[in-house]
């Protein structure tokens, strides 16, 4: 048995090339951060190192807390690759354009909101919540992936920005679902805290506080809608 058996290329992202395959015989994804020739090598090295370290630590802690994120199987800092469990499901960007799953969309969006709130309740902000980084599976529900820009943070601003990134993505890429964000927000505000919260509860912004900050951010961007 090969250690890593590549099946296909999933995505050429802005940061990394993502392949799907088998790692020691189990479904996995391999994420390799490519050097960026257009970026100064010092800056490139700094960003790659800090993003890889923080992603691996973040995924490990969130996995232990029971969140729907891929766990880390292996990593090689020197060559810049990380092996992660392959989560079930398809990116939301595809699901929202697929008439075959149209009936599931309200639940998909509400579950997205709940998953984001559960992440925030751990004191973590995702930093890149686009519809490419949320997976939906009819049976197992929502998974959150790609934690390259994620941070441990209890500032309400970071949580609000997560919602703003998703809001911008939904209104830019899926304008046909005009009330999509409202459904996400309603899921967000009704999430039951899941998993182990190891942050002092009083430090953490409530869902209502995050929603009100999100409204502020929404009106702060240049020409808001």
């Amino acid at each position, binding site marked *: 048995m090969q250690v890593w058996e590549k099946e296909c290329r999933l995505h050429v992202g802005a*940061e990394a090339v993502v392949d799907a395959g088998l790692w020691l015989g189990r479904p996995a994804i391999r994420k390799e951060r490519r050097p*960026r*020739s257009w970026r100064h090598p010092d*800056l490139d090295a700094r960003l790659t190192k800090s993003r890889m370290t923080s992603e691996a630590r973040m995924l490990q802690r969130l996995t232990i807390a029971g969140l729907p994120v891929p766990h880390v199987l292996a990593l090689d800092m020197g060559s810049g690759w990380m092996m992660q469990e392959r989560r079930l499901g398809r990116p939301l960007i595809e699901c929202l354009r697929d008439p075959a799953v149209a009936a599931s969309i309200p639940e998909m969006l509400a579950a997205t909101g709940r998953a984001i709130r559960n992440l925030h309740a751990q004191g973590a902000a995702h930093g890149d919540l686009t519809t490419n980084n949320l997976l939906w599976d009819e049976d197992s529900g929502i998974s959150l992936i790609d934690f390259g820009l994620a941070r441990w943070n209890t500032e309400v601003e970071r949580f609000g920005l997560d919602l703003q990134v998703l809001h*911008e993505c939904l209104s*830019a890429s899926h*304008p046909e679902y005009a009330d999509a964000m409202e459904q996400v927000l309603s899921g967000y505000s009704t999430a039951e805290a899941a998993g182990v919260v190891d942050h002092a509860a009083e430090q953490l912004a409530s869902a209502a506080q995050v929603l009100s900050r999100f409204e502020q951010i929404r009106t702060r961007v*240049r020409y808001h809608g």
Partner: protein
Amino acid sequence: MASTLESQDSGIVLGIESTAHTFSIGWVDGSGEPSPSVSASVTPKEGGIHPREAADHHVDNSGEIVQRVLSSPEFDTADISAVAFSQGPGLGPCLRVGASVARALAQRLEVPLVGVNHCVAHIEIGRQQCGSNDPVLLYVSGGNTQVISRLSGRYRVLGETLDIGIGNMLDKFARNHDIPFPGGPRIETLAEQWLQNNPGASLDGLELPYAVQGMDLAFSGIMTSALKLVDGGAPLDAVCWSLQEHSFAACVEVAERALAHTGKRELLLGGGVACNERLRSMCASMASERGGVSHVPARGYCIDNGSMIATLGRLQLLHGVTTSLSASGVRQDLRTDETDILWV
């Protein structure tokens, strides 16, 4: 421009630009080919653009510019079929000067008035100049920093600055070191100078924040840290170089995220900061590494110019989207995704 409507002879369309520090009039011929604009820009003696002073400048210069354009030997005023103007977004007092000139001209020439979206005009002149069909636009100017992509008949903002525009950040940094407005070109020269004197320079000790949040950006923190570096004794040209490396890399990364997200392969640069050679070369390598292309219009069509307003005005005219006098008020907060794109 495959559709037959866009290839029709539109007659001469004038375009008036006055969103910020530049008052400019340009025109396109009946086939949509633009001619270089006639422009005047205000250069503040100190500080940034004061909206009212800029508006006064536009008032003072508009008469002569109108005169020069109308007496151009390249066309007869009788061939003018419409007058387009920047209706927004921009500085209110400045916009009102352009709108007033446009109303007067349209009335005098008895032709339709066409109010256009300034941000969309940057995209349309870029597409026209570069022969680019469906690009992701990285729009970097003083007031605006946005990543834009077309979807369902509108240009959508995928990401943008959450605080100040990148050009504004460069101007403010420059102003703190007695570099006159606009600061970008001088910062570019100083950065090149540092690199020439220090080939293979390291960013050690010149690190700045790198604020990328998904596809959004922020620049005020970078500026504050850069000012602190200079206060702490770092050479000004070294900090200028680091400032460009960090802030441009953030823009290019966000543009690359947008290309990855939309699956498109053409990048188009627009806005005054797109004149910067370092930014242009970063975009070119990013796009080619992805197997795509990066388009940059000539400088005269990157900065604010009347020709781009005429280009978009012509498209709207051919699609019957003109502006009545009563609807010709300016819109300081006009958004990129409010304009229907009927011509693609």
